[in-house]
């Protein structure tokens, strides 16, 4: 066959915060890295994040998501990482080969190590009328307004008051839309207060213990019927209320995008705190398949800041195993990152991730005995 096979040390699938951070660490140590992304621009979700990150300054608090993206891109470019954009990784095959499609041509890349950092997929929520044009994922609406500068509607209902739902509400207001209401099935607001306060201050109502009963419209969304829920999340009859809207954003959480990891034969486990099934991995982010790593949302839904640290861990471990970094230096670097991850995973939200991540490590140990310890 005349099919060209490109070879390199490290293949990074997905050039979001995790993928870029891995590329920077591995290439920074001298590894030959090819990074792939299906989008026209690397950075993943970072360029949609026009809000400031918060937390500690070591985790770039106060910096806006897209600025973090620009910083990462600058480093990647400086290091000369080969970044293939508009490139789809359509499969993963034996001997660490990734099948790609670029410019309508098919190709194969073979790496010694592979990072799968393909992010996450939005969870759907079903109600009568959920397939009407105008009903979309909150992430989709965010891509439209912040990347493509297109406002998909005028009057929005947001379903879900997690951080995604709250942030998109605020950004829709900034983009000039009206947010009629935010609905939350649980009895209390899901996301950080700093985000909910922002939209409540400008008068957007957040209805807890509420959901969408039905979306009506002839060819697109025209009316949204909301309903109150009881303690068992069942609709309470007679509490229906009709709101006029032309767009519904579903912010029902995310689940890890694990297709390639599944195909590679990585062992999966279910962790509800981290979004569902995901490839179990060791403390260096390596899966049960030697040389195949995961990081970011693919390794469990968290945030960009943890994704970057996980990507770095993977990149450092790869560089060490490929002989580009001494064990001493690698250990020291990893230690710093683990401390940082521990800090990121503290607090009421973070501690749940921390507990789940510890269970992943435990699952790895029972899976492969002591092999993973060195």
């Amino acid at each position, binding site marked *: *066959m*005349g*099919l*060209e096979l*490109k070879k390199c040390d490290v293949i990074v699938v997905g050039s979001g915060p995790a993928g870029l951070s891995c590329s920077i660490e591995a290439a920074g140590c001298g590894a030959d890295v090819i990074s792939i992304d*299906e989008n026209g621009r690397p950075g993943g979700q970072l360029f949609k994040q026009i809000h400031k990150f918060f937390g500690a300054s070591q985790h770039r608090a106060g910096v806006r998501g897209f600025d973090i993206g620009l910083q990462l891109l600058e480093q990647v470019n400086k290091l000369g990482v080969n970044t293939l954009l508009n490139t*789809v*990784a*359509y*499969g*993963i*095959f034996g001997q660490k080969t990734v*099948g*790609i*499609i*670029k*410019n*309508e*041509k*098919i*190709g194969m890349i073979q790496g010694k190590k592979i990072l799968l950092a393909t992010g996450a*997929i939005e*969870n*759907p929520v*079903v*109600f*009568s009328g*959920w*397939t009407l044009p105008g009903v979309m994922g909150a992430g989709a609406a965010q891509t439209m307004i912040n990347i493509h500068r297109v406002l998909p509607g005028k009057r929005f209902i947001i379903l879900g008051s997690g951080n995604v739902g709250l942030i998109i509400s605020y950004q829709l207001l900034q983009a000039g839309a009206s947010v009629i209401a935010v609905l939350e099935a649980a009895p209390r607001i899901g996301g950080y207060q700093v985000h909910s306060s922002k939209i409540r201050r400008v008068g957007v109502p957040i209805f807890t213990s509420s959901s969408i009963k039905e979306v009506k419209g002839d060819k697109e969304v025209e009316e949204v019927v909301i309903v109150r829920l009881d303690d068992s999340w069942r609709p309470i009859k007679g509490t229906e209320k009709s709101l006029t809207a032309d767009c519904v954003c579903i912010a029902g959480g995310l*689940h890890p995008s*694990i*297709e*390639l990891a*599944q*195909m590679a034969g990585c062992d*999966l486990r*279910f962790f*509800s705190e981290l979004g*569902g*099934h995901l490839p179990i991995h060791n403390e260096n982010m390596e899966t049960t398949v030697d040389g195949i790593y995961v990081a970011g949302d693919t390794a469990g839904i968290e945030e960009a800041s943890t994704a970057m640290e996980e990507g770095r861990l993977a990149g450092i471990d790869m560089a060490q195993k490929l002989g580009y970094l001494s064990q001493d230096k690698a250990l020291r670097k990893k230690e710093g990152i683990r401390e940082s991850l521990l800090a990121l995973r503290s607090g009421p939200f973070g501690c749940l991730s921390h507990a789940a991540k510890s269970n992943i490590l435990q699952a790895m140990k029972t899976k492969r005995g002591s092999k993973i310890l060195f």
Partner: protein
Amino acid sequence: MKKKVNNTICRCEEISEQEIRDAIRKFNLRTVDAVKRLTRAGMGLCQGRTCTPLLTKIIAEETDKKVDELLPLSKRPPVRPVKVEFLAREGEQKLD
């Protein structure tokens, strides 16, 4: 009493909730893969990217299982829509 609703679950293949529930009951289906093969839900252009969590929830309800007891859809290439034309050209063209 549950109100009779019949929402579309798999938009790519246009498979409704009722079709899925009927298939599960009629053929005693127990896995997401089996439901996919019998109903085509999750077999379309997006390869179940959207409907897999919904399918899983429905199967869990019908079979009295928890969603975490059900394995996700098995995956094989291509994981993204690929024109057969590109695959057919394999061997003729070189990558940039």
